[in-house]
């Protein structure tokens, strides 16, 4: 069936409704970067090994290069572009800057999305849990030390802000 090669999909992207016409074999990564212009999600190995393309699908960290676009129909996608609230950076982004957790920065967007998924699930992780949480994201230049430190710092800050709100 020729019409089966194209799918009209709708999903929420960083809270807004979007729709796109995608091919059955299009990856979410391609649709985000090439069709919708969300280039914050990085194209790394394209085989699910490096984690540079990590986005959240219904709150769960996935490699956007491995998920077919038709599969995200009706689901909620979060990318690095949706992490800050307007001009207000997310505590993770602030902590990454303060701790010098980015060097070349290529792993940054994926690293931050994995960290967000981790803190959403485990708000006060141990260092080992943080390392496990980002173990699917390869960084070639920082040695991870400052990334781990930044995620721990953000978790403490988010706990404090959350505590004040309660």
């Amino acid at each position, binding site marked *: 069936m020729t019409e089966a090669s194209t799918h009209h999909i709708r999903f929420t992207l960083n809270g807004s409704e979007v729709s796109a016409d995608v091919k059955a074999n299009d990856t979410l990564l391609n649709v985000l970067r090439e069709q919708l212009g969300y280039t914050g999600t990085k194209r790394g190995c394209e*085989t699910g090994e490096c984690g540079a393309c990590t986005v959240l699908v219904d709150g769960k960290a996935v490699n956007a290069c491995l998920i077919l676009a038709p599969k995200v129909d009706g689901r909620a996608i979060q990318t690095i572009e949706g992490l800050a609230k307007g001009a207000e950076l997310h505590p993770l982004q602030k902590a990454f800057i303060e701790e010098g957790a*980015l060097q070349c920065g290529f792993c940054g967007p994926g690293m931050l999305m994995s960290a967000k998924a981790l803190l959403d699930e485990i708000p006060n992780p141990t260092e080992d849990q943080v390392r496990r949480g980002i173990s699917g994201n390869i960084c*070639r230049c920082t*040695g*991870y*030390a400052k990334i781990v430190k930044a995620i721990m710092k953000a978790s403490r800050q988010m706990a404090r802000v959350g505590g004040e709100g309660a």
Partner: protein
Amino acid sequence: MKKRGRGMACMYYPLGFTSYPNPSAAFAKYNPDGSATVLTGAQDIGQGSGTVLAQIAADTLGIPYDRISLIYGDTQAVPMDAGSVASRVTYIAGNAVKKACEQAKSILLDVAADMLGVLPHGLDVADGWVYLKDFPEKRVAIADVAKTAEVGRGRPAQGHGTYNPATTLLDKETGHGKPYEAFVYAAQVAEVEVDTETGEVEVLKIYAVHDCGKAINPMMVEGQIEGGIAMGIGYGLTENLVIEKGHVLNPQLANYIVPTALDVPPIESAIVEIPEPKGPFGAKGIGEPSLLPTAPAILNAIYDAVGVRIRDLPATPEKILAELEKLEKEKAK
């Protein structure tokens, strides 16, 4: 059985090669609003050279860091640079930026001296002001001096600088000579745990002490050390490019194993600042030196833990098991 061991390795590393020309060039100008523009050919590839060069410029020009606009990356617009290689950028490009800024500053001080009715050598710059060294209350804003220099005197406060460590060819007969201008030193200690049944090595901790001259940005020096150590762990234990008849047989991250956050242990690093007289503000460099001692420290730690010497990198479980077996056979004799 899991056995623990500790190993150490030291290194020295040369910076600023002199066996052939090694130049960096820069341009700097004060702007009439009190900011400054600095052009450098040195490319920031994530190591933070842009930050370091802007810090050097800010300190030399006497204006705040956030008022420096550093321009790089466009070869049509920026001066020449030999490249972001050889751990040379802070040292060589830093010197070029400093010289360019010093030239701009000397014009600024000339004009300010004229405005204040004093001699230029009695003046200095800091925090956006030109001030009299013996009487700091007597001062004039850099913005005003820069404006006067341009509009009133027709002498824009700008400068250019080139740094090229004196080229000294090596003796063709003996190969002797002085191939580098400066050297850095470091020592690292690795603590490992070796599984004698599987041959697997877990790195538990790395201690790293590095001399980099004056650390212009200590946090970024630490970042370079930590990144180098991660590469050193890969070099020592997992990374192995397999080439057969011109083909790379493991071109993927699934079979060319780069350390993940779980493979890199906590790192404790310390910086030893031995100022280099020829470096900008005494700085030398840190990039490549950070990864050099890691693999030999790990190999020494493996020897300390289980008594086998691995002489072929990476030290894979297969190689360690083979050596352990040899050791057992020798003991049985």
